[in-house]
């Protein structure tokens, strides 16, 4: 019997046994789901809450309008060491720092020499201060936002959803015949951290130790 057949046979036998003896016990039915009532969300409130919650993780949040992105990105790279920057090929030109290397072309060893990476994102989640990367052309493969020690991520206010469940609705991959391959997703909530030693929070273990979120919103003060 293959491992597959054996496991599935055990599962089916267990389900039958439980079904047979269920009546011997006073069992409550599984809890019922009551969908929550969602208040209408105001886009300004979402952006404010997102900014506040990202900052709670000791990430840096810079709010600006479209015209101020280049300056905000440049300021986020000011004290960089090593002073080498990379960006994915699909990053909008206006956001791309001068002299940035093409991130997608870097191998593991070259990535180690990069001080910072500048990307866009797929979605922001206000309630938890989370940015979600789907590693599309304006974000690059997963290694790109992982190995360099600083990640500057540009988030547009209209990408922000209220809570995690809304994020999952927005991020649902295609299913069924002919569905496109589901991209990998990385949920990032603040910089890398550990509390493994006496529960004292230390920012920065293996992922980027510095996270700068540039939040782009029409009407926000430039820079």
């Amino acid at each position: 019997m293959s491992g597959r057949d054996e496991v599935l046979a055990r599962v089916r036998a267990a389900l039958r046994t439980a079904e047979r003896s269920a009546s011997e016990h006073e069992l409550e039915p599984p809890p019922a789901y009551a969908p929550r009532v969602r208040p209408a969300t105001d886009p300004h409130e979402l952006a404010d809450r997102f900014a506040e919650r990202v900052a709670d993780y000791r990430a840096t949040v810079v709010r600006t309008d479209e015209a101020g992105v280049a300056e905000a990105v440049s300021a986020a790279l000011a004290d960089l060491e090593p002073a080498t920057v990379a960006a994915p090929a699909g990053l909008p030109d206006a956001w791309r720092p001068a002299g940035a290397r093409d991130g997608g072309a870097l191998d593991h060893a070259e990535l180690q020499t990069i001080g910072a990476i500048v990307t866009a994102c797929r979605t922001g989640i206000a309630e938890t201060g989370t940015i979600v990367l789907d590693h599309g052309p304006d974000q690059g493969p997963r290694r790109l936002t992982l190995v360099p020690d600083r990640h500057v991520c540009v988030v547009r206010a209209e990408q922000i959803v209220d809570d995690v469940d809304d994020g999952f609705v927005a991020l649902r991959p295609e299913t069924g015949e002919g569905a496109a391959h589901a991209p990998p997703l990385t949920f990032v909530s603040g910089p890398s951290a550990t509390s493994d030693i006496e529960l004292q929070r230390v920012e920065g273990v293996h992922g980027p130790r510095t996270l700068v979120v540039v939040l782009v919103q029409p009407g926000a003060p430039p820079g």
Partner: protein
Amino acid sequence: MSARWPETPVDFPKAAHETLKDSQLRSNLGHATTAIRAKREDVVSEVDDWESLRDEGAAARDRSLRRLDEMLVRLEESVTAAGGHVHWAADKESAQRLVVDLVKATGSDEVIKVKSLLTDELELNPALQDAGIHAQETDLAELIVQLGGDRQSHILVPAIHRNRREIRDIFRRELPGAEDVSDDPAALAEAARRHLREQFLRVPVAISGANAAVAETGTVAVVESEGNGRMCLTMPKTLITVMGIEKVLERWEDLGTIMRLLPRSSTGERMNPYTSLWTGVTPDDGPEEFHLVLVDAGRTNALADPVGRDTLRCIRCSACLNVCPVYERTGGQAYESIYPGPIGAILTPQLQGLDTAPTLPWASSLCGACYEVCPVKIDIPKILVHLRGRVTAETNASGKGHHAGAERLAMRSVARVMDSRRAYEAAQKAGRLGLSLMNNGRGARGALPGLSGWTGSRDLPDPERSFRDWWREREAGELEQGPDAPALPQAAQDPAARSGAAMPGTPGPEDALPTDVPRLHGEDRA
């Protein structure tokens, strides 16, 4: 290499007796559980629909568990369609063999590992070691446990029984390049970062667990904080993910529900720093080869029990550990399994078989705090009581009555101590001293000498003084009778008992002893 767990049967009273001697452990743990409890309460109180969210979490888990065969077949289809390979292991040995063979096929003699409870349950590291493959743990706490040749004591923070000085000493001794590291947690984390970075960039095979997998999409999730998970899931050429069959979810949105519940219940954060989701393999991004190993290893034992099967809803958040008065005293290692605390007390006996861990269902005061915090509403006290019934019935039926004797053993310990009045009084005094030293404002409990088997699973009221002390003081006129005087135990109100028991130096009838000392008293936690 982390130490193996002791051979079964698990003997909780005996193991707890040992761990209770370690005051450093209790101090480290008390600090940790208090801090995590407070954080959890803060972030849970922010969520307006927390109670219905718990209902939905439980329902989502049940939907999948009640049709687990279908879910697993769908998961296999989705993962395969996305370019991954699915393998099945009925037990620990076949899981070990499968993984060892998969690693050998890559030609590598080393792997990097994401923290995974299941791989520890399967004793995968020793199995890899036996096959000449070095498994490097990369989670900071797992690294501490591995370098120290130690065992885990908490689901979320496995090295929580170690303080910073102990960790510094382990690093100085065992971690290349860390000979002069200080005991500052940031310096210790930096030493781990430097040591592991080279391996992340070089080692071609990673092994991970999984927090969940979605049947309809084939997506697998790993939830973490440090980025070691992202490194292992992204950098190597081959990824082997080992997952318990119960972790599968039916729908994509179910994962959204779990991701609202898990971080708040686990680390007490709105969201953990990093969650990775991946579906099969993606060209030019991450591993070229992905293997998903689905493991039963006793899960179907639990699934066959209509009461016990709710245990399989567990999403391993560890909230129940942090509120458990028994766990807080004994620490995780007393449970002699990777799954400690209340969830371990119901999970381990079901996974390993009731005869291998017959005492664990008694490792609880049934106070109910674990159920209150469980994000997927596992009624742990109900399952504990159910398993106690099963242990007694099944071991009696099999003629192995001595295994059923956890409670009887505890009662015998009580009886033995009570046989000698002097020993009993000494135990009471020492117990009260211990209680006042350990009192943390939530009622008191402690290890009475010779009674730790009992007090490990039963709570004690905090007597200001024993009846005997009280009586002696009263006789000596030291105690004012007033509204603050302690209520007399039943025995003291019985004139016959009073005449016998009260005379100092006169052996009294044993039934005159306070009869309610080892009584159930966990309500202060609920």
